């Protein structure tokens, strides 16, 4: 009884002092590791990109790949000629500044994946060391994404200050 009480006490002291680190994706999931490249001229309002995600899960959900594509378009951009575009949100600092918003946006229940679509048949899986690299071509609706983020007050628009 006393030992149980002691364990309970220790637990009660620890619980209030935890904090979360922002990693994106599923709670507790390792920060997604990916590469992004321009893959061609997208239709108007869209970027066509190729995303390669490093993961332990061979059957990684398509939505996770879409989220990686949206994340890359927002915070990294891509600079392989002739398809290069700057990061839509300006820089990774924007992600830190609005961490509350992006935590929800990039979660499994968030809206990030809805701004992208996988090109059917473009998904390939390769085994590298003890992990898998899943590559796919994704269309990201960057105009709608930019409008949404401006509406949410997370990035500035041309008339934000006026």
């Amino acid at each position, binding site marked *: 009884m006393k030992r149980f009480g*002691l364990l309970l*006490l220790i637990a*009660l*002291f620890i619980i209030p002092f935890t904090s979360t680190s*922002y990693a994106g994706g599923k709670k507790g999931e390792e920060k997604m590791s990916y590469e992004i490249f321009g893959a061609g001229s997208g239709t108007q309002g869209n970027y066509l990109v190729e995303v390669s995600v490093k993961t332990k899960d061979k059957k990684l959900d398509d939505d996770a790949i879409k989220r990686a594509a949206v994340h890359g378009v927002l915070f990294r951009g891509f600079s392989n000629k002739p398809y290069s575009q700057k990061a839509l949100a300006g820089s990774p600092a924007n992600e830190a500044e609005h961490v509350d918003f992006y935590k929800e946006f990039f979660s499994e229940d968030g809206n990030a994946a809805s701004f992208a679509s996988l090109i059917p048949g473009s998904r390939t899986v390769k085994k590298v060391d003890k992990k898998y690299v899943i590559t796919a071509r994704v269309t990201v609706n960057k105009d709608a994404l930019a409008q949404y983020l401006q509406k949410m007050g997370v990035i500035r628009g041309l008339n934000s200050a006026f």
Partner: protein
Amino acid sequence: MKLIFKLMMSAAILCMVALGACKTQTNIANEYGSYGFNTTCIGVDPNGAQILRTWGNGINKAKAIEQAKRNAVETVLLKGIIDGNGQCDKRPVINEVNAREKYEAYFNAFFRDGGAYNKYVHLEESRTSRIKSKNSEMEAWSVVVIVDRSALKARMIEDNVIPR
């Protein structure tokens, strides 16, 4: 032993009570410890007070949060709230050019530790989180505050900083 146990139980109970007031906190990368993010608009309450997410830097948590409150008031007074959802008044309270410099002595007193600025800003954390970044030199903390813009404006008129 029994006494120690009783004391620990009391402390645990107190902590449980305080659990409701413990703030959720998100840590971001250490590199932003010295970064100066802008104050952004989250909303406006029915009285016209501006609900803002604000950032401050300091050598410790208390100083950083105090600086965040100061930054919120200074932004409302002198810069205007450009970032955020656009609901706050984008114009500063004081539109006179170079006002910070012109009324330097006044503002130094207004913004000093424990100065008058504190009356017009308070933390609003019942449903919001804090954000923290800490590097070897500085800490950056972000909190949500409410700034009473109309009261600030009245104070500036009273102190002859802006005309009636």
